[in-house]
């Protein structure tokens, strides 16, 4: 039920996330786009769990836990970078250039 529209929404969300990561410059926005992709995946899991059993729902909790941890670490890194560079533009964060 509603599997097709759910997956469609998921694909749209995921693609938006990818595009945001690829083309935005602000680290916070990139970060939010990553969260968007994670949630798109979560939506896929939920939608498919209706047919394939409850494991998908369990995994969604794992993903949310990891995303929360990631958010904590990622925001901490961004605060560190901002203190260092006074900017969150990823174009300027290229210390590892070969």
């Amino acid at each position, binding site marked *: 039920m509603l599997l097709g529209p759910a997956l469609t929404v998921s694909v749209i969300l995921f693609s938006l996330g*990818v595009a945001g*990561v*690829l*083309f935005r*410059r602000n680290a916070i926005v*990139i970060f939010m786009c990553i969260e968007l992709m994670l949630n798109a995946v979560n939506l896929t899991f939920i939608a498919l769990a209706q047919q394939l059993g409850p494991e998908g729902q369990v995994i969604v909790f794992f993903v949310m836990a990891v995303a929360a941890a990631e958010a904590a670490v990622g925001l901490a890194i961004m605060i560190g970078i901002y203190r260092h560079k006074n900017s969150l533009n*990823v*174009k300027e*964060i*290229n*210390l*590892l*250039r*070969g």
Partner: protein
Amino acid sequence: MPASVGWVWLVVAFPFLGFLVNGALSFVRPDAKRAVSTVGVGVLVLSFVTAVVVASAVFAEPPHGHAYVLLLWSWIPAGTLQVDLALQVDQLSIIMMLVVTGISMLIHVFSIGYMREDPGYPRYFAYLNLFVFFMLILVLGANFPVMFIGWEGVGLCSYLLIGFWYENRPFADAGKKAFIMNRIGDFGFLIAMFMIFRATGTLSFASVFAEAPQVFEVGGTTITLITLALFLGCTGKSAQIPLYTWLPDAMAGPTPVSALIHAATMVTAGVYLVARSNVLFAMAPVSSFAVAAVGAATALFAATIATKQWDIKKVLAYSTISQLGYMFMGVGVGAYAAGIFHLTTHAFFKALLFLGSGSVIHALHHAYHATHGHADAQDMRNMGGLRRFMPWTAGVMWIATLAIAGVPGFSGFFSKDEILAMTFARGHEAGAFYVLWIVGGVAALLTAFYMTRMMLYTFHGPNRTGTEEQGHLHEAPWVMTGPLVVLALGSVFAGALNLPEVLPGAGWLHHWLEPVTEGSAAYLPAMHLEGKTEWLLLGLATVIAAAGILGAWNFLKPARLLPASEAPPEHGLQKLLLRKWYVDEIYDALVVRPVMWVSDRACWKVVDVGVIDGLFVNGSATAARAVGWIGSRLQSGRVGMYVFFFVLGSILVLRAFLR
């Protein structure tokens, strides 16, 4: 095999033991000269005594057909190549063994006196012991590779001892020259070994010589190439044309070394090799003739140079080259016993001459040392009249001179005459042998001349050493004159080993060596002279010797000779001879300089700097850096780029999975 023949390994082992002990002493206790002398000479005495015991067992029970072979251990067991470390005791090797150990022992004793004040005393004896060890390996080895160990080992010791006073640059260079020229010869030896193995599948003397008649055809290309390659080895080791120029330079070493290595033993190794491989050489008439011709040419060429040298050791060096030429003439015409006979007698009288010259140089060196003079202690123009100061040395050296000049009754007369007689006997086949015979005769005349010249200038006439120095000239101590007297006895009586056929008790050595040379007899014409011819040749040899000696005695006036510092420069032929026909200069221009030029311009500046350093070493680094640069462009440090490639990669992976 008689039980005591099994002790032959001791003959070899004793000198090696001496080398180890003296080598250790040279590091630990360089001042313990008494211990060094005791060990150095003691091991030689033990070795000689053992050699005599072994030899007497062989004399009592000579091997027939097969030589006694003492297998020590299997050295190279590699498939069909089986090389054992084995010692061969037969009629030929015991003669060589007795000559080597006997002469070495006397020269070791002489060295105690000669080298007494040298700071490198233990090192000297260590090298000398090591040399005897390798020389015995050379003559006792039962196959080509074992002989080659000895062959290389004596070359090494020769190098070490020529450059014994290595602080002196020209002396060290002389050592290098000897080593490098010997390497050219060794290359020939190696090639010959490869070819022998390829043809016969074995390298031991017994099997090679037994199979040679089946494997090779007489006068064939293979056997000719093998024997020519072997002879190339001989020309290096035994100082024949064209590789002889190292030997006169080798006189830079201490005089007893010149006596032992560069006169009596090592340089005769080539003659031994030809005599040992007599079957191979007899099957290759072209090579044999080349051996004889090179020998005759060397005999004459070196003799001409010897007539005009002023350095007493240089005279003897060229004399040695000349006499080695005779030996090669002997083994080249197929008179193997005659070659070994001359080797034996030559070992006595040439060792005596060198040691005698050592005694003279020792005396002059001390005289100049005492007065702080700087004149050359080896230049005959600084000698003269020494018989009044050193009667023993003068006496024994005259004996050796008469022996080498070929005065009847002395050993050299019989051995040299036999070689010339055998060469003459083969004149029936080809006139070329008569030419060799004439060349040998002229060389004999020159030999008598230059030896008498040397004796006249050294021991007769007024003394030119210097008035102040005369008070310091004196005879050598008994430890030096003793060996001289023993060698003098040998120089007189060694001729009895092989008297001419017309005399009673003739040809002992010839018959003794027959089991060794019988394999080659089938390929050689019978070399026999009628009694009348033989008497005629003996008479002619006497006339030649007398002419040479009396000619020198009458024409040379030692009284008119000036000391080296006042002597006028030579001109014309004299200068040509003094400068040794400019052979060293010719070699320098034709070989040394081109090699240096190619090494410098091509090998160093193009191949080494350009190709090795430029292309390989720096080139690979540059290539790695260039590839790395391309990779490093991806490491932009921009997260967007990384993610782009990540996404791109993910899409490609998914595509691959979903297909």
